[in-house]
Every structure is written in C-alpha cells, then in structure tokens.
C-alpha cells in the first residue's frame, strides 16, 4: 500500500543552516542523523523538548544541523553535560552523540558511570574505528593489527566490544547496528527513545577517507558492503554466526532509573525538613 510521504524529517533540520553538510562524501554520520530525525519524528514531540549533546570529532558536528536544543561540548564529556541538562529538565528527551574515541577513550569514565547510573538518556556511539577529525589515528575500537596514522606497523592492542562494556556497566538498553542496516537502526533508535533508562546504541559507521583507505575499502560503497558481510543478527545462535560481529539488541532490561530514584530521595528530604520545621527546629 503506497502512502504519500513528504520527507517531513526535513523539518528537523535547522532551516537557516548552510547545507551540504561538512562531512566527506558518503560518510555514514549523515545516515545516522537521518535515522535519528525519523525516530524523533515518530515520537511526536515538540523539538524544543529534545536535547542533543555531542563531543568532539566528526560526529560532534552532527547537532548543529538538527533543529533541537543542541550542544557541542568538550571531548569525551557529552554524557556529563547531558546528565546535568536532563536533571535540570527531566521532561526533555536527551541524546548524547559521540564518536568511538569520544565515548570509550577519553570519555570512558563517563561512559561507564552514565551506564551504571542509568539516567534516562540515549547514548549513540558513532563507531568508525578511527579518529577521523584528526586525520585517521587508531582508536580503542580499531581491530588489533590494523594500520593507522599512529600505528604504521599495526596496533598491538585489542579493541573494545562496546555493547559488552555497556551491558557490564549497567545500561538498560544496549544495541549495535550499522549504517548499512538503516531500517534496523531506525527501529532501534525508536525503542531507545521510548526506553526509560540509559540506552547505548553503537552504530558501525564508515570512514572510508581514513580507516577504509588504509584497510582496502576506499569508498563508502566498499565499506557498507563490508558491514553487510561482516555482521550477523544477534538472534542467530553464536555457532551459526560464522564468527561475524553480532548486531541487534543485546539487552533490554528494567534497572532502577536514576531520576525516579532521585524523586524518591527528594520526597524523603522534603519530609525530613517538614519534620524539623514542625518541631520548631531551625532549617538551616
């Protein structure tokens, strides 16, 4: 059944910002932005109640294009700024968009604590296995042995498995997808935005300009074909995945959500103060 559908998500792009975007041709970050906007559109929420906070790097350039309340903060600290914003404005939908370096290198500490705290928020990790903005150095998610501009002889350290890190840290919704798998990505974003808890979505993205060029995948097309071949649904049993990287929803569980717990604390504090005042004791 055909439906007329205007690209209404265009409404969520800043009307006065110059396009085309700053990213390289074929860069998956633009695909992620589109998926986020479509997912937000599905929420039917006032864009002025949506917050998007990014760190530093190519993915950090995303929020300026989105017509929400947007912040482009210091490297690795997006989750912390987003935490403060969410606590000040609990009714806002808050997203943090980070690169692999931003989220699990310099931002690693904030990543694990935000997951542990489980404050309602959507953390998108744009994983292109490189530090693109600075010209292609390796990151904690660069596969071991791969060359880069700071690993001419190949890296000698293993890479993080981001969903595993997020699950271990306590996040309540954890997923991995790729920019090739756009429909899956949109559905995962929609679920994460509706989840009452801390969601981590790793999106494998193509940096053919640096990572791909150094590993034999010189174009966006090459890299997206690789994503299709190199990943398999997590719903398949492990022995049927042929050693491919699992994608899909790793965990969707109920954990105590931080705001809800804090509201309980506020109630206890309020009662305590009332008790003091009723007893004629000074506050402070």
């Amino acid at each position, binding site marked *: 059944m055909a439906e007329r559908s205007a690209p209404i998500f265009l409404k969520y792009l800043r009307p006065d910002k110059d396009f085309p975007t700053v990213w390289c041709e074929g860069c998956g970050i633009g695909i992620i*932005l589109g998926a986020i906007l479509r997912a937000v559109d599905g929420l039917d929420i006032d864009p002025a109640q949506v917050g998007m906070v990014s760190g530093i790097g190519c993915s950090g350039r995303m929020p300026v294009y989105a017509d929400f309340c947007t912040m482009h903060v210091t490297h690795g600290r997006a989750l912390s700024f987003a935490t403060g914003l969410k606590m000040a404005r609990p009714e806002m939908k808050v997203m943090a968009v980070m690169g692999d370096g931003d989220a699990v290198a310099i931002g690693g500490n904030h990543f694990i604590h935000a997951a542990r705290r489980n404050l309602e928020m959507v953390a998108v990790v744009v994983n292109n296995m490189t530090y693109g903005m600075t010209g292609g150095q390796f990151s904690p998610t660069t596969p071991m042995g791969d060359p880069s501009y700071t690993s001419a002889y190949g890296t000698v350290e293993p890479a993080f498995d981001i969903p595993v890190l997020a699950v271990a840290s306590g996040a309540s919704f954890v997923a991995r997808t790729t920019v090739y798998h756009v429909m899956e990505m949109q559905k995962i974003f929609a679920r994460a935005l509706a989840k009452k808890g801390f969601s981590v979505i790793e999106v494998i993205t193509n940096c053919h300009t640096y990572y791909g060029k150094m590993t034999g995948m010189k174009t966006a097309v090459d890299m997206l074909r690789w994503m299709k071949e190199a990943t398999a649904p997590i719903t398949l049993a492990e022995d049927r995945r042929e050693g491919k990287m699992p994608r899909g929803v790793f965990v969707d569980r109920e954990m105590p959500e931080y705001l809800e717990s804090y509201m309980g604390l506020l109630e206890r504090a309020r009662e305590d103060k009332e008790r003091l005042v009723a007893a004629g004791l000074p506050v402070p």
Partner: protein
Amino acid sequence: MKNESGWVAPSTPEHVLGLVEEAMKDDEQLIMLHPDWCKSCALCVDVCPKDCLEMDGPLPRLTDAKLCTSCGMCEYLCPDFAIHVLKLRWQKG
C-alpha cells in the same frame, strides 16, 4: 524550480521542503534530487534493490521509472538528504 536537466538547486532545508512538497503534486515524478547537496557517493545506486539508479556524471539518475518500487532505501541511505522518494511504499512492522 527546475533547470533544463529537470533538477532543482536549493541550499537550505526550508527551501528544499517547499520544493519537495511542490514535486509531490506531480503524479509522474517518483524521486526528487537536489544536486547542491549530493556529494556523488553513489550509495543510493549501490543499495537500490531494483538497480534502477545509475550515476550520470556526478549525480544519480533514475534509469527506468517502471522498475522503481518507491521502497525508500535510496533516501534512507543518502547521508546528505539529497534524494527523496515522493510516494513511499511502507511496510509496517
């Protein structure tokens, strides 16, 4: 507004939205491209399940309108919001 190749050239989202809504009034037109935003990455060409897009110089071109099913994959995969499917065939779920 259309130039002689049939394409339009906007530069802000506000402008594009108006052009798309205008293009939707034409029942014959299946997709719309705005060349100012296209960076020639060819992801749309590669992902089309019906292989009905090809690169014509720097821009993609619909080769055979009868093949297009309006699935929307070219639009979803475009990183630059440069191509739009005007009558989207949705499969829910």
